[in-house]
């Protein structure tokens, strides 16, 4: 994840709008992919990114005062995702989850990983993406999600156990904390 420092605020409202647009256009690809890992479909991912940008723009002057706009945006995105999952508490029972992948070609691996991610509870999934995709530390992850470091550690362990179980031993070897 890029760790851009907050750019200085520029000029009046028109300049602020342009500054926000520049930032959003640059940040969109990364946020979109993170959102995709969180929710597993592009449409929802883009909804999450749009929500994130809306919240950022609403408070843009305050966002610019943050240490890192990227970190701020990431926090907004992940919390928007958790908010979304709170509203949509569909869960997949473990017995209904897909069988471990038998073959490892790209397409099947992709489906297997996505299916395995889908079995994770929302918070555990957010922890996995933050820790292993965004490369955040336990402390940074806890800060982004507004939970304790102990919660991050336990969620990480739980998520890895589920992924190992779902992805099978071969791929499971890739997973280590």
């Amino acid at each position, binding site marked *: 994840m890029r760790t851009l420092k907050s750019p200085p605020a520029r000029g009046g409202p028109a300049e602020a*709008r342009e500054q*926000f*647009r520049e930032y*959003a*256009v640059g940040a*969109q*690809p990364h946020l*979109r*992919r993170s959102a*995709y*890992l969180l929710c*597993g479909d*592009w449409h929802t991912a*883009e909804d999450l*990114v*749009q*929500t*994130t*940008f*809306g*919240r*950022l*723009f*609403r408070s*843009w002057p305050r966002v610019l005062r943050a240490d890192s706009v990227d970190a701020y945006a990431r926090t907004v995105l992940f919390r928007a995702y958790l908010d979304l999952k709170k509203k949509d508490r569909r869960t997949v029972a473990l017995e209904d989850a897909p069988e471990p992948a038998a073959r490892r070609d*790209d397409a099947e*691996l*992709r489906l297997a*990983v*996505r299916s395995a*991610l889908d079995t994770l509870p929302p918070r555990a999934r957010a922890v*996995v*993406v933050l820790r*292993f*995709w965004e*490369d955040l530390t336990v402390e940074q992850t806890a800060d982004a999600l507004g939970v304790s470091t102990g919660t991050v550690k336990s969620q990480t362990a739980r998520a890895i156990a589920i992924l190992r179980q779902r*992805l099978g031993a071969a*791929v499971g070897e*890739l*997973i*280590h904390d």
Partner: protein
Amino acid sequence: MNDMRKLLSSAFPPPEDEPQPRDVVGPAMEWGDRRRRRDWTLTAAAAVMVLAIGAGAAALGTGSGSTSATGSDPLAPRTPRSFPLDGPGTAGTELCNIQNPPTSGGASDYCTAFNEAQNFDTAFAQGSAPYIQAALPPGFTVQGTGNHALILTGPGGTNYLFPSVTFASTLDGQAPACRTPPEGCVQTSTAGGSVVVQGGPSGGQSAGYVKDQLKDPRITITIGIKGSGTLGGIQPPTAGQLLTNEQLLRITGNAAFVQYATTQWAHYLDLENRLRVMTPPSATGSTAHPPYGTVPTSISAGDTVNWPTRSSDWQSSGPGSSDSQSSGSQPSGPGSSASGSSGPGSSGSQSSLSTAGSGN
């Protein structure tokens, strides 16, 4: 850790299979703009409410109705005014809205006055338009809607305006009414130097406290403004708050508007007083009637229909005009605090400024 990242990367489809990203920045900025305008309006409303509540704190604390309407939504459907002597389902409410309303005689007069009073909020708002227009900065226009809201159009879009009038919320900076003298009450000598009764200073030496039977000619004009929300059947606002608090204050302090509002409020109080001594129609067409507050049992609530208002008779009266419908009926006392609970003061609950105008 890198292995795990690689595993997660495998969840993505090949780049050529990724759908083109849609434009989320523009819609997000539009949403952010709308929310910021709403935030700003609500912040302004909160600040103004602090002022309003501060000005009327004593009145609230002592039970005066003049400021008790804070907190309601001006966009909500208007509740008809409740009369001082009316309870739920009183004779006027039930009998002046039935399918075949009385068309002549005392019952007709009663219902004419009753419905005119019921529609006071709407009529006052619509009649306020020319006065507000005259006090607006260049580039702004205001027009009526047939409701208790006006549409303000300015360079940046439109707002709802909710003009209203009610009792003076303060009397020389003090609460005009109280229920438990002497604590929290105002000596009339402080309030005006003489006892204030039946619409004005009596000329007598102050001798006591202002009670909740006070009827003071002074008024409070409130103009609520909203840049969001929707009032049924009326085009919603399209801009954040278009007028500053200072500009709103200038409008409420406009001498012609104060004169108009004072005249209309006096007319409303007169309607109240006339209704007190008039005979409500009965369900059978007889003019015999039960006392106020008695609910007739022969009329069901579902029988109500809209009753035409005659408020147009007076709503367009010009600045400084006197109201020809003011009767010589003897006021039996001022409106009690109950009349304010659903009164026009509620329209300023979201964002309003009030000022006391001196009618006399």
